[in-house]
């Protein structure tokens, strides 16, 4: 049984305010004016090759890119079988942007054009599905809807998943996108005893609600060495 102290955040990323922030450091600043063009500039910046990206709605694009950057350079499947990795995400606006787009397509009987490629994105968990497909992740996956990111619940629920061996690794955080607003925060939680020992590298941040909240707010926090 893993106790609370046994879990660490081993990597975290944020995509907000035109910035890509990895482990607290701004790595990329985009001047792109709109959410769509910004997401495309991040896609190009990280040399991602996935033509399907361009079919996604902005919410899935944001989730997809965040996971892509989080897992960059990590061979996660070499470390954990896909079924031991969880994806637990929070979001406030659900898929409202795609919902409005679909509603607009059916508003007028004389100009009626519902499209399966829009409709499929009218569910918030599609972003979790896109991440799962890309990284072959097959474990627990749930999208919760909150008014704002809830570090306490995130901590409690993910701790429960680890404690009962439902996951051995978890991608979690907050992916929200509606209109001009976008914000993502993703972190990788792992058990301390499963972290690769590498003396030169910092290993992680203690997984507790205070650390999660600080990371989400972009406040600095010390890594365990």
């Amino acid at each position, binding site marked *: 049984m893993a106790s609370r102290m046994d879990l660490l955040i081993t990597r975290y990323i944020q995509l907000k305010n035109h910035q890509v922030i990895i482990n607290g450091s701004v790595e990329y600043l985009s001047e792109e004016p709109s959410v769509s063009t910004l997401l495309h500039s991040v896609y190009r910046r990280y040399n991602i090759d996935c033509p399907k990206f361009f079919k996604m709605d902005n919410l899935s694009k944001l989730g997809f890119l965040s996971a892509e950057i989080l897992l960059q350079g990590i061979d996660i499947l070499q470390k954990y079988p896909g079924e031991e990795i969880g994806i637990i995400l929070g979001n406030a606006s659900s898929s409202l942007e795609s919902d409005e787009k679909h509603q607009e397509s*059916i508003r007028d009987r004389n100009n009626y054009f519902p499209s399966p490629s829009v409709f499929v994105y009218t569910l918030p968990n599609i972003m979790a599905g896109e991440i799962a497909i890309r990284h072959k992740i*097959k474990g627990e996956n749930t999208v919760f809807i909150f008014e704002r990111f809830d570090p306490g619940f995130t901590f409690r629920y993910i701790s429960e998943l680890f404690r009962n061996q439902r996951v051995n690794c978890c991608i979690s955080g907050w992916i929200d996108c509606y209109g001009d607003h976008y914000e993502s925060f993703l972190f990788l939680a792992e058990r301390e005893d499963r972290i690769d020992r590498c003396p030169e590298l910092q290993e992680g941040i203690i997984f507790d609600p205070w650390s999660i909240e600080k990371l989400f707010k972009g406040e600095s926090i010390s890594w365990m060495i």
Partner: protein
Amino acid sequence: MANVFVGASNIITSLAFSTAGHVEQIKAKQIGISIYPGGNLYPTPVPLSLVDNRQLQDLFRQYLGETQPGLQPSSFTRLEMLHILSISDVLKSSGVNIKDPRTLIILSTTKGNIDLLEKDRYPVIEPDRIYLWKLAEFLQHFFGNPNKPLVVSNACISGVLAILIGSRLIQAGLYDHVMATGGDLVTEFVVSGFQSFQSLSPGPCKPFDAARDGLSLGEGCGTIVLSRDHSLCALLEKIIVAGGSCSNDAHHIAGPSRTGEGLYLAIRRALKEAALGPLDIDYISAHGTATDYNDEMEAKALSRAALEPVPVNSFKGYFGHTLGAAGIIESALAIDSMRNNELFRSAGFENPGISKNINVLTDHLAKEVNHCLKTASGFGGCNAAIVFKKI
């Protein structure tokens, strides 16, 4: 670990406004799916299972008059009326104190108040109740519950997940009681979307049947109480949540895995957690949407889990696919089957149309049921399985 008991439930669909009403209708083999003409609402005629609007309005007006006479029915959306009637029925029959700080509301829905996007649909309702968290908060405040509700929106496995997550939170000692309530409406929004996918059947759906040709949409609401306190189930046979799991196919966002591997994985883990083998399972309440791919995928997963001989049904032939409510509505019926040791015919099924020899119920069957498996699968490649156990 502490037992999590499954208590009273309520179901509202085209068939009835209570769980007992549903059982009565299903026993009588009543189907709630009818063909609605095209024209104003839909481009072509479409079979749907709809909650009777006049009855809903009457019951809600009566309920509001008895409990909160200062409020007007016009300040509630249709989905809110369904949830309020459903939750209040379960509160009455279970005796759960909704104002208790140890009681949590979990809402499962895919589209919530999606009809708020329709122009002029609700002139006096705040448009921000389109947000699912706001809808949940509205229900929380209506009932005076002190805890921020949890909202699960994970496509068609949302309802099963709400029960599973509720039982996990009780087991972790965070709450004593959970009201898991799931609801979704049939609106032009979902009908047009599923039509664009060409996944709607021209007649009432036929899960697992050789002639199945798509799903039928249904609207509804289901509420089920979970509790660590078995005295809440005093008059009912004691049933617990013995295990459960969810998984992802990692295959396609809009189509199920061809192999059933994801669902198989969820079933395997649920059985393991319940410490049961396939031979222990007496009955399976499957997802059974009646689309070609889904039912075939489920048959493969059940076969792979060595569950072929176990009697299985889908309730969707009775009242369609109720989306985010489905997992709760169908679990409530499965639990009733356990309590009464009576399994129900899988409506719409006549001739097997799947590649595996699973045991789809062609008629009602009296059978002792000690362990029941409930499964669900949905868009985004998600699957869920939960095991209910009589103790």
